[in-house]
């Protein structure tokens, strides 16, 4: 059977756009004709209206959430990096912490968030800490396995060149881990936003999570949906930012893709 030809760029963009448009139209119709009562589900038009009306308010909450997410992500990445390097350098450290880290990830974020608020108060700290906890693991795991993915022959070769441990790390292990690091970072970036919002649900004065709690209590479901859209947009924007950083940091990948296509 002949392989299916690569769909044209226009089709690749249009098909999902049309699907979304059709779903939105269906949603509008379902609520419009009263199959689902409007007090339970706002129409897409109402959601957009409240998004526009509350834009300045949403923006100010956004800034706080983004700041918490960014601070937590930066600290999570830094901590994950240190852990991954230690796990790579010391076998004992790897053996000691590897299972512990896996187990720590089975604890749901929602379950620790109230404890963090209880211990650390209603300020930014519990939010940042929750973001650190949820972003740290994907970074550590991806980096640690990236470091281990380096061809042992490369290390032998570098040893015949009298390379120091640091040089082996810098020239061979770190570049070998970049691709996996960015995969981990992409996951972490979305976790960061969600982590900050969840922590905000449980207490605080400002942030998208606080906004969500307030509009939920006043039964403004259109505003609820508006904030969901904002959270999705933020996560997407962060993911795109990571992709951009990846392209900038790994120029050789483009050459590899090109030679694969040839």
């Amino acid at each position, binding site marked *: 059977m002949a392989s299916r030809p690569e769909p044209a760029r226009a089709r690749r963009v249009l098909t999902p756009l049309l699907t979304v448009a059709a779903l939105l139209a269906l949603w509008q119709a379902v609520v419009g004709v009263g199959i689902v009562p409007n007090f339970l589900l706002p129409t897409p038009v109402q959601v957009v209206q409240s998004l526009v009306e509350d834009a300045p308010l949403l923006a100010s909450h956004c800034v706080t959430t983004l700041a918490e997410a960014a601070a937590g992500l930066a600290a999570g990445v830094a901590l994950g990096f240190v852990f991954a390097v230690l796990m790579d350098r010391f076998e004992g450290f790897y053996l000691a912490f590897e299972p512990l880290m896996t187990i720590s990830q089975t604890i749901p974020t929602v379950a620790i968030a109230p404890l963090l608020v209880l211990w650390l108060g209603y300020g930014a700290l519990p939010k940042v800490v929750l973001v650190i906890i949820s972003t740290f693991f994907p970074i550590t795991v991806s980096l640690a396995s990236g470091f281990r993915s380096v061809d042992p*022959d*490369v290390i032998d*070769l570098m040893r*015949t060149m*009298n390379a120091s441990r640091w040089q082996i790390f810098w020239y061979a292990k770190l570049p070998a881990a*970049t691709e996996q690091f960015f995969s981990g970072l992409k996951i972490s970036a979305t976790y960061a936003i969600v982590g900050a919002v969840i922590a905000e649900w449980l207490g605080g004065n400002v942030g998208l999570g606080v906004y969500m709690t307030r509009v939920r209590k006043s039964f403004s479901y259109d505003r609820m949906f508006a904030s969901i859209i904002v959270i999705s947009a933020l996560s997407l924007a962060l993911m795109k930012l990571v992709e951009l950083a990846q392209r900038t940091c*790994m120029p*050789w990948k483009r*050459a590899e893709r*090109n030679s694969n296509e040839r």
Partner: protein
Amino acid sequence: MGAGEKNVVPALEARDLTLSWDGEHIVVQGVSVDVAPGEVCCLVGRSGCGKTTILHALAGLTTPVSGRVLLHGEDVTGRPGRVSYMLQKDLLLPSRRIIDNVCLPLVLAGMKKTDARAKAAPLFERFGLAGCERKWPSELSGGMRQRAAFLRTYLMGADVTLLDEPFSALDALTRTDVRRWFVGVAAELGLSALVITHDVDEAVSMASRIYVLAGAPAAGEPSHVAGIVPVERVNSEHFELTDEYLAAKREVMALLG
């Protein structure tokens, strides 16, 4: 030391090497190998007979159970960084451009990047890599990558080079080309080389002496040098068609068993 005396000292010498993978299981027993200055020797043996283990020990990556490795008469047993080593895979770092890949040994030795590049750049033409300086490894063909790996090996600066099946990853035609090119360059640069191969034809066409390794370490029978076959190179143009070539090949095959 007089000039005549100097010629007697081999560039690389392994005396009575006994090697093990794990300290208990002996892989290679009592192997002695020597390579004269400017000579290309081959080490031939079946898969799994411990050829790479020997090269690792010669490169100083492992310490032998017993025996010594001498470089121009100096004991370098278990000390890496004294001889150049090229492996079967080109092992170019995908994240560095070709120029920086070949400069790696210089930079690792503490040379400034710009100085290293200036030293390597004039060699690109001689190594058939002109115009490839700024390319990424993935943009080069297998043969070109192997040349780049060889230039990197050359820039390690040692006059003795160990090569572990350097051409085996290439297709047959490229392989013959790169091999011929290598023999030419090695002669021109006066390199002493010990080349591992399991291809008898490759060994006979490259080496002036062939060490034949026999044994089955996995079955508890450590490998040893079954014989040394000198190759008399008569007509370098069509050497592959001469009786001397066939005689050497026959002798190696007989020793391999």
